């Protein structure tokens, strides 16, 4: 574990309660001069649902492809237990992938697709039949066993792709944005199903997505990638309530970033000030909109008098953008329909203003 260098990875190791199944050590990847991954280290625990979250171009798919063996890392190592994984060809890794576009074999039936891995491993016929039937049953596709992939819907293809990977009982299942092609309703339904399936089979999942909501709903831990570097790795709750960086705070949920100056235990941002036991100097704070409430006079809360700029209706709540007297703009999430006036008294607890690291500028 000495090779774990980045602080994010060290944090991940303490929060993973189970032994590490796969450890990614200082992996970097460049295509020509273009560095796609830089020194990524993280560990995936047995039975864990880990999401690699990032914008397009963050290197998340490349990282997945390195784990699967479709790409070679430029430097760094992959270890699965005592076995060096990165020197194995993909067909020798006990890792299976659910592809973004499913990649079902068009010339084979659903049943033959699911049985493919067992057949090439030369398992006995009876075993192949039984396991394929079980897998199809698990994803509720038994009725479509004899169909060709061109005759089933996107959601069904997704289930077949899942069954085809799981039937081999991999140690690790990789999923490359498998839900992105589905419409919103089906996607939400599949998120729940996928999560419960993962619990049921107990296989570690590495799930790649650009959708932070999806990541929050499904994951045990989220690894946030930004321009090829690991920004933060933590549980969804942790990453939401204690974002490590300004980027993490902004990428996951909405936030207000307050540029404050800390001196003698007091943080000052415009006309606002609150106690903060941090070293002196400029500090960035993340304040979630839901922590900005209509003033109720709670002791110790920071009061803000502001003018309402606009409101965005979100069903049960609305996001209200306000401007303070000194020009500072804040967003508050409050119960829908509670404010009608032009001006408003708001407050927040100093504890909810979370200091975050400034994200370094990268391209």
């Amino acid at each position, binding site marked *: 574990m000495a090779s774990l260098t980045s602080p994010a990875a060290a944090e991940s190791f303490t929060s993973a309660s189970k032994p590490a199944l796969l450890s990614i050590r200082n992996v970097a990847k460049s295509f020509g001069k273009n560095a796609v991954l830089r020194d990524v280290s993280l560990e995936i625990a047995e039975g864990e649902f880990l999401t690699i979250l990032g914008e397009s171009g963050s290197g998340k798919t490349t990282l997945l492809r390195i784990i*699967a*063996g*479709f790409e070679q890392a430029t430097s760094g190592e992959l270890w699965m237990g005592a076995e060096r994984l990165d020197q194995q*060809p*993909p*067909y*020798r890794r006990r*890792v*299976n*992938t659910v*592809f973004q*576009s499913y*990649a*079902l*074999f*068009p*010339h084979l039936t659903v049943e033959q697709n699911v049985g*493919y*891995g067992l057949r*090439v*491993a030369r398992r006995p016929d009876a075993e192949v039949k039984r396991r394929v039937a079980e897998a199809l049953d698990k994803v509720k596709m038994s009725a479509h066993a004899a169909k*060709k992939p*061109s005759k089933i819907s996107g959601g069904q293809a997704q289930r077949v792709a899942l069954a*085809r*990977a799981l039937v*081999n009982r991999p140690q690790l299942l990789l999923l490359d944005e498998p839900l992105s092609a589905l419409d919103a309703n089906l996607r939400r339904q599949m998120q729940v199903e996928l999560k419960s399936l993962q619990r049921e089979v107990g296989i570690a999942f590495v799930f790649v997505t650009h959708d932070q909501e999806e990541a929050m709903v499904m994951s045990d831990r989220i690894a946030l990638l930004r321009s090829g570097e690991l920004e933060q790795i933590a549980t969804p709750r942790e990453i939401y309530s204690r974002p490590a960086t300004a980027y993490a705070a902004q990428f996951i949920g909405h936030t207000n970033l307050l540029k404050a100056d800390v001196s003698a235990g007091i943080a000052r941002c415009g006309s606002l000030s609150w106690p903060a036991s941090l070293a002196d100097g400029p500090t960035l704070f993340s304040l979630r909109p839901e922590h900005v409430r209509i003033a109720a006079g709670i002791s110790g809360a920071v009061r803000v008098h502001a003018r309402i700029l606009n409101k965005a209706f979100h069903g049960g709540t609305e996001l209200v953008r306000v401007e303070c007297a000194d020009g500072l703009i804040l967003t508050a999430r409050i119960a829908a329909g509670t404010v009608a006036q032009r001006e408003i008294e708001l407050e927040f607890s100093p504890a909810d203003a979370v200091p975050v690291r400034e994200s370094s500028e990268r391209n």
Partner: protein
Amino acid sequence: MFSRAYKMVVTVPPLLWVTIFLLVPYLLMFCYSFWTVSASQTIVHSWTFDNYKDLLQKPVYWQTLLRSMWVAARVMLFSLALGYPLAYFLSFYAGARKDWLYQMVIIPLWVSYLVRAYAWKTILGSDGVLNTLLQYVHVTHHPLDFLLYSPFAVVLTLTHIYTPFTFLPIYAALEHIPRNLVEASHDLGATPAQTFWKVIFPLSIPGVLAGATFAFVLSLGDFLAPSLLGGPSGIMISNIVVSLFGAAYNWPLGAAISLAMLVLVVSLLVVSERLEKKWSFS
């Protein structure tokens, strides 16, 4: 949607073209194949099956037809044996050199067929490049005479000429295979060899069928290569047809043989098309 005049303008010319240059000649040929030639070398317009009987009964005709099919079959097999690995290498392993190599395969198609056939003549002849070389390195002391004016020369030349025709559809089929299918196969534990036989080859079958059909049909009807390089033993059915329409002045028999070949080729095309449909999955 479209005016009557517009529909006329777009449909009539092609219909006329097909009628005048295809249907009428075929009809004429069909009629000729049932007529005969009199002793005084005039065509007698009386209807008879004699020409077809000749075709089946006189060994020279059906044997030459069978021999031509055998030549075509060999050309087909050799073209596939050369074209498939070439297409596979280009599609999967050529990387950055792909476009360049592709052009190298295509460029010979711009060179006249006749030039390429003559080139083989200078290579294979008894004073040719190959025989001179073989004698120079003392592999043989006399020029090898089976090299030129033999079925061997015909098969070799036709294979050289038609390999690009098998390469192209196979290459197109291979290029159309989504690469994530290959990755999926490796991911599921299949070795590269298993992946080739279980995924890549089955998905390239339409290209293989199209290429095989090209090579077979084009070689079956070829008459230049056998007349330039075939010699007496390398004669093919088209040479017979050419002479029947020319020196021998027996148009009816020539027409009958042509029609028989047409039926053969069209049935082959139908079968090949059916099979291609069966093996395409997009």
